């Protein structure tokens, strides 16, 4: 049985967002918005060549979105665009719970309860969208 969406793991991740370190002078930055709910995520990146050194999220969003931002911030170091996209695609497939259900990194399993709520999938993916945008076509 799918766990409750508002069980402790997701709530704890969402509440931990405030503990992430802001970046004073980011190398890259981009914003992504979910027009359906108004969630808005701005990602700031410190880069080490093509790889992310540090990621910071400014979030105006729901619990699920904030939890995903915290999770991504914790695992982003060392990712380049290609690996980030693979992670994002894996997460999306996991959320859609397709027949070829991928094996996901352990840190993504916390989002298993979101699978039953299609309208919330985009909330989980929003920080990935913003980060990919920052790596591809950052805000001016």
């Amino acid at each position, binding site marked *: 049985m799918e766990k409750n969406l*508002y069980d402790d793991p997701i709530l704890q991740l969402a509440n931990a967002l405030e503990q992430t370190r802001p970046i004073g002078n980011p190398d890259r930055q981009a914003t992504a918005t979910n027009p359906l709910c108004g969630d808005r995520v701005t990602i700031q990146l410190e880069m080490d060549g093509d790889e992310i050194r540090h990621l910071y999220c400014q979030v105006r969003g729901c619990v699920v979105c904030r939890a995903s931002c915290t999770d991504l911030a914790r695992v982003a170091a060392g990712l380049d665009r290609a690996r980030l996209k693979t992670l994002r695609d894996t997460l999306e497939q996991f959320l859609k719970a397709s027949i070829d259900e991928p094996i996901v990194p352990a840190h993504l399993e916390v989002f298993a309860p979101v699978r039953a709520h299609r309208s*919330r999938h985009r909330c989980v993916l929003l920080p990935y969208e913003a980060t990919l945008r920052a790596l591809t076509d950052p805000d001016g």
Partner: protein
Amino acid sequence: MRFDVDQVAGQFGILNRRVGDHPLHYLDNAATSQVPDCVLEAVASHDRTRRANVKRGVHRLSEEADEAYENARMEVAKYLGVGCADEVIFTGGATAGINLLAQSLGHDMRPGDEVLISQLEHHSNIIPWQMLRARTGITLRFAPVTHDGRLDLSEIEGCITRKTKLVALTHGSNVTGSITDASPIAALAHDRGARLMLDGAQTAPHGPLDLTSLGADYYVFSGHKVYGPSGIGIVWGRKELLEEMPAVFGGGEMIEDVGLERSTYAPPPHRFEAGTPPITQAVGLAAALEWLSSQDIEGLHLHLRGLTDQLIQGLEHIDRGQGRIRILGPNRGEQRLPLVSFSVQGMHPHDICQIMSDHHGVALRGGHHCAQPLHDLYGLDGTSRASLAAFNRQADIDAFLGGMEHCFRVLG
């Protein structure tokens, strides 16, 4: 017949379904209402016994379908309190209707002409006019909104000028619940040579209208919010105004004579109904309006007013004076539509709505409700909204308030 909510609720079969382990408490009627069984039966019966295309055939089924479709038009005219059914155009919904008006009325608009909308509007009454501005160079002006979510009538006069061609305003806000006092606006508009269009998507569901005394020149609403099927709506317009309007969608049904080089078009309303219309849906809409008209409307209004007041009072009680819950719109006890949008500091509307649905069977709407400019005006990312209909009962309010207490326990 005296309004009896249990008798009314018994006519909505969907209310017997459960949401997980919970009975359904449907409080999302401003988005889409539910349909009474008689509407479902009317729709099924039409398709079971009279389904055929209209206007194009002389066989029996076609004639019966045509009669049903035009009878539906007459039923809408009756509901709107207008004498001429030819003033009723069937569309795909209120949004389609506003787009039709923007395209057709915009045909004669030039740079310098003005259209007045407001900050209170649904996107469907903003974007078509922005598109018109992009096409024609007209000026778009915006009537202001008061702190309690009404059109600011004290400022409206200054917004309507000799250049104003059209004033297009909500008749009732889907966010604040405020009801527009349209008659003085109509008088102002007409005095300056402008026309008035009212978006009645939220007001039409609450009982028969009297468009003649309202003073509007055009009116739109959607069937799916008036206990009817989706995919149908109406534009009403005064006959002499519709006759001046050019067609905007071309095809079958709307013609008089067609040649390869040029064609002539039918008079209204058919001029604006290109292609096969939503026939079955029109029949369903007529059944919905007939059903609604047969209710004790005053009793219904009293009932919904009582529930709305309880809902607001309940939220105020939960807030316990902390100021975390902000309720938009007129104060408790003042006239408003039976809908309440509210924000809770530190809680995202989608989290509230998810908990309400998953743990209490309560259907709410969360977000900007297609009214981003209004939310921006209030400095809000989004709100949660409960919106009532004829079948809502005390148990729905109790479930809502219990769910809100739960949200405070979980989300802090």
